[in-house]
């Protein structure tokens, strides 16, 4: 049976995993390669590495970080942050990423989705959408770019459909309303996007407990769910989390 995926996300700056609460209080949470392996060994189904470094110097560090992290990682590995061209994507693929996640650059130039897909396959292109509900809630949820700082005027569900048509392999949907709050995913928004597209939808933003994962898989119809901060500092690991989600009736890959 196809299982729902639990994805561990590492936010990386200057080659180190960092953790912030509402974009402030950034603290060092460790070495990306070491943490990625620990997550994979603990049962995470995939690893996502998001580069939050905006500087040019940071890019070189990123490629090195991707190479070191990928070296002995044998689960799917996605890299996002600052990928603006097919050449940027190629560099992270060559360093060992299996998929790239593109966000602001896909809004700026939607052709990029197809350009990366034509060389590396649609399965290698994740379009990340940062979303905030509008005055009428989910129906007019809006796409934000530049790390959530700039509204685009684009409707979330419509953009997800366009991304699919342009050849995205998956959608990574982050709710800015729930992100960092640890009060649960935005299930209603996730469901709206999941029902609008055929490709898998990864829910992100708001994970605080195993019950939140079970909710977003069942009510939100998410195919996968991603969390960062709850995995850091040994708060919980994927093994315990997945066992709880499975007990709630969701198909999970559990160690034999």
């Amino acid at each position: 049976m196809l299982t729902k995926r639990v994805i561990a996300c590492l936010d990386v700056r200057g080659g180190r995993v960092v953790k912030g609460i509402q974009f402030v209080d950034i603290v060092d949470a460790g070495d990306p390669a070491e943490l990625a392996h620990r997550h994979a060994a603990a049962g995470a189904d995939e690893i996502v590495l998001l580069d939050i470094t905006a500087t040019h110097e940071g890019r070189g560090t990123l490629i090195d970080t991707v190479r070191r992290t990928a070296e002995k990682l044998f689960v799917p590995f996605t890299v996002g942050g600052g990928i603006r061209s097919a050449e940027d994507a190629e560099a992270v693929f060559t360093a060992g990423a299996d998929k790239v996640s593109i966000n602001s650059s896909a809004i700026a130039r939607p052709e990029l989705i197809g350009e990366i897909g034509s060389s590396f396959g649609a399965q290698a292109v994740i379009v990340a959408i940062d979303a905030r509900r509008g005055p009428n809630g989910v129906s007019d949820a809006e796409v934000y770019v530049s790390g959530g700082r700039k509204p685009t005027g684009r409707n979330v569900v419509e953009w997800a459909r366009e991304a699919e048509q342009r050849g995205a392999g998956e959608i990574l949907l982050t709710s800015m309303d729930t992100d960092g709050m640890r009060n649960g995913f935005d299930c209603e928004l996730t469901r709206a996007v999941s029902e609008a597209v055929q490709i898998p939808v990864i829910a992100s933003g708001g994970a605080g407990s195993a019950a939140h994962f079970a909710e977003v898989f069942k009510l939100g119809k998410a195919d996968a769910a991603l969390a960062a901060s709850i995995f850091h500092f040994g708060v919980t690991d994927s093994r315990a989390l997945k066992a709880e989600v499975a007990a709630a009736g969701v198909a999970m890959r559990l160690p034999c």
Partner: protein
Amino acid sequence: MVVYGGGNVIAVIDYKAGNLTSVVKALRFLGADDVVVTQSHEDVLKADKIVLPGVGHFQATQLLEDLRLTQATREAVAKGTPFLGICVGLQWLYEGSTEAPGTAGLGHFAGQCERFPAVYEGEELKSPHVGWNSLEEVRADSRLLRGVKPGSFVYYTHSWRAPVSADTAASTLYGGAFTGAVERGNVMGVQFHPEKSAETGLKVLNNFLEL
């Protein structure tokens, strides 16, 4: 460190379909220190083992014919060289795929690859099939899947699939059963990505290296 028997030159065929980094990395991790990424039919004929990875469109396999790699594969396989196709590499072992009706596969296994149905048993079926799914009906005599227990999870990402036949070594259920692994003699294929399937995937690759 060489952890397998037999010869040790592994030809990984590059037909410009996706990213070979992960496959090569996994083979080297398992101790294969003579991995040649190649488009040369001579390399394929000389190799002790052949791996055909690939993600993307079935159409891309047309390049194999154009580079005379189809003929080289036929000859190598006929003299007993172990062959492993991964993902589209498995699909190519069949007669063809509805994804690219004009492009013939190797035809080593009977049947056509077809797209997942949009609806299965009255329910909408999402496609592509992405994620970890379990191997069922694992054939006891499979050399490729030696030590792999039924119910083991592997990572898939694909929209077309090969039918189940007598050569199927393990099946997976998604919109009905399809071939997760196929094996007859020295010719083998996996629809899943062993290089991304954690311990189970590494076991499969190691079994292949040990042939």
